[in-house]
């Protein structure tokens, strides 16, 4: 099969969990990587080694271990900056996850007094200002903007979707206008799989002086991402979907913008000096990193991006496309399956949400699980996108660099079994 990673069997050996056998003796077929990815041994080892040999708090410990821990933590930031092609390592801020990163942006913008972009100066946000999102966002890129607009009086607007799961850009001239202050959208949809034309949208947004925020939670794991080329002013992703640990997320932002935003959380590490009356703040990145950061998680994240980078992001993208195409063919071979979103692998990322006629996603996932196949069922934190297509929930299979065609076969076979189990096909079990 063209496009597959040539060393797939070797790569699979890097992920100890893929050896697992589940109840009933079924080998694990993990197709929930868009939810969270599995972790390679190098990530596990890097974290264990840090905890076993170098553990100490960062920045504030004046001893050898403190120096080692700080060096490891900051080295991770260098790695992530290089991985994203960020102009400066200081523009990489560690958060708890992508959700916190998006909340950081929306919340600091709520309180920002004045913001200057290349084409506009505005603030504080209020009536008449507009924030533009899309109907295919993860709840994490909807709710923070609802909070901002409710708190400031600004208006929340969004791009609708076409029937084939693309952004409806027909009204872009009206949606992006001189009142638009923020355009925040997902690069790759976690439900529809759609890859959005973010550069073009960013170009249009910048013409009116709006800030462009990209939710790259599903993009960074599976395609080359260069923040300078992306058009973003701010780009966020989450560690646990790039083979890293949970508990750490990344916010990259242009220094010119980050310097204008007020602090997010207050506390240790984010200050220059503190008196009882008032404080002054550290520069970026520390201004946005109050308190003890996720240290061992940062070490794990650094190892994770090194790992996927060494496999090669272009190669991972090709692999995902090949597996997705194969899975789309497999799904098309069964009766009564409707795939949501774009129908060709080339237009989409490696998550495929679908409906099975007359069987609820919960029941689909339950039967698949009994055969060792792990998928996600529900609204995938994208209720508005589901509502747009008139469905309440869906089943989602999502692959990653370790997914094999044989696993896709097992998935399709388990789906056929599910249909027989519930008697929704003519065939007998």
């Amino acid at each position, binding site marked *: 099969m063209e496009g597959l990673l040539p060393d797939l069997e070797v790569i699979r050996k890097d992920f100890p969990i893929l050896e697992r056998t589940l109840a009933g003796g079924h080998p694990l077929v993990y197709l929930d990587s868009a939810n969270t990815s599995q972790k390679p041994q190098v990530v596990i080892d890097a974290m264990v080694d840090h905890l076993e040999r170098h553990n100490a708090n960062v920045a504030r410990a004046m001893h050898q271990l403190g120096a080692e821990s700080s060096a490891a933590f900051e080295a991770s930031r260098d790695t992530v900056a290089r991985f994203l092609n960020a102009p400066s390592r200081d523009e990489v801020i560690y958060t708890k996850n992508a959700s916190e990163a998006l909340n950081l942006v929306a919340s600091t913008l709520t309180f920002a007094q004045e913001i200057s972009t290349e084409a506009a100066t505005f603030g504080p946000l209020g009536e008449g200002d507009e924030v533009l999102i899309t109907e295919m966002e993860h709840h994490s890129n909807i709710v923070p903007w609802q909070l901002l607009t409710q708190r400031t009086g600004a208006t929340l607007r969004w791009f609708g979707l076409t029937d084939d799961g693309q952004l409806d850009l027909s009204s872009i001239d009206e949606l992006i206008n001189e009142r638009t202050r923020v355009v925040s959208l997902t690069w790759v949809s976690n439900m529809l799989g759609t890859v959005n034309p973010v550069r073009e949208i960013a170009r249009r947004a910048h013409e009116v002086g709006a800030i462009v925020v990209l939710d790259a939670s599903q993009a960074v794991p599976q395609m080359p991402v260069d923040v300078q080329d992306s058009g973003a002013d701010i780009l966020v992703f989450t560690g646990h979907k790039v083979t890293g640990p949970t508990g750490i997320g990344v916010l990259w932002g242009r220094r010119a913008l980050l310097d204008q935003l007020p602090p997010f959380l207050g506390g240790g590490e984010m200050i220059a000096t503190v008196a009882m009356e008032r404080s002054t703040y550290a520069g970026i990145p520390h201004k946005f990193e109050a308190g003890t950061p996720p240290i061992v998680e940062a070490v794990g994240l650094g190892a994770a991006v090194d790992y996927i980078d060494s496999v090669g992001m272009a190669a991972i993208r090709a692999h995902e496309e090949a597996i997705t195409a194969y899975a789309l063919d497999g799904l098309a071979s069964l009766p009564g399956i409707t795939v949501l979103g774009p129908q060709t692998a080339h237009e989409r990322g490696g998550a495929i949400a679908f409906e099975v006629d007359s069987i609820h996603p919960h029941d689909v996932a*339950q039967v698949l699980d009994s055969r060792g196949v792990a998928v996600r069922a529900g609204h995938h934190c994208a209720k508005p996108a589901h509502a747009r297509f008139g469905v309440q929930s869906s089943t989602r299979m999502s692959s990653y660099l370790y997914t094999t065609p044989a696993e896709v076969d097992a998935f399709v076979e388990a789906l056929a079994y599910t249909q027989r189990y519930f008697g929704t096909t003519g065939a007998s079990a």
Partner: protein
Amino acid sequence: MSQMPGQDLDSLYQEIILDHYKRPQNAGLRDPFEAEVHHVNPTCGDELTLRVHLEGGGDDAVVADVSYAAEGCSISQAATSVMTELLIGRPVHEAAAVHAEFLALMHGRGTIEPDEDVLGDGIAFAGVAKFPARVKCALLSWMAWKDATTQVLGAEPTPTPSQSPDQEEQA
């Protein structure tokens, strides 16, 4: 056999459950009603609108009708259907006792032997208790019924003393 035992799918998807799923009883929203509630399962998005119609007041109140519009999995749909069969026509305090018994069964992690005299078709859900992720599916409608009934009565429906599971266990 060195194999780990498989998940017992058939204990989850009992014939009775699949029957109710395919042919839900008492479905649809009807008048009259005194309370209507809307409950959702935030993790999976299952939704239920449920109406309760009581006749008579105080200790004599009777569950005259429970009607509903629901979207959800086989377990939540079947549980709603079975619940309406069990509760419609019963005095509220008796219905509350059935409610308590079903709740205890669902939270029993598969260790409780269900009482068919109290639960009727509801005993088919015994297997669900072994699938913790599905317990909330089975309970969605029961919680909605209790919520709606509480709204009508202005107080939580209390089980008939002689039928409360606590008492039975002591007996």
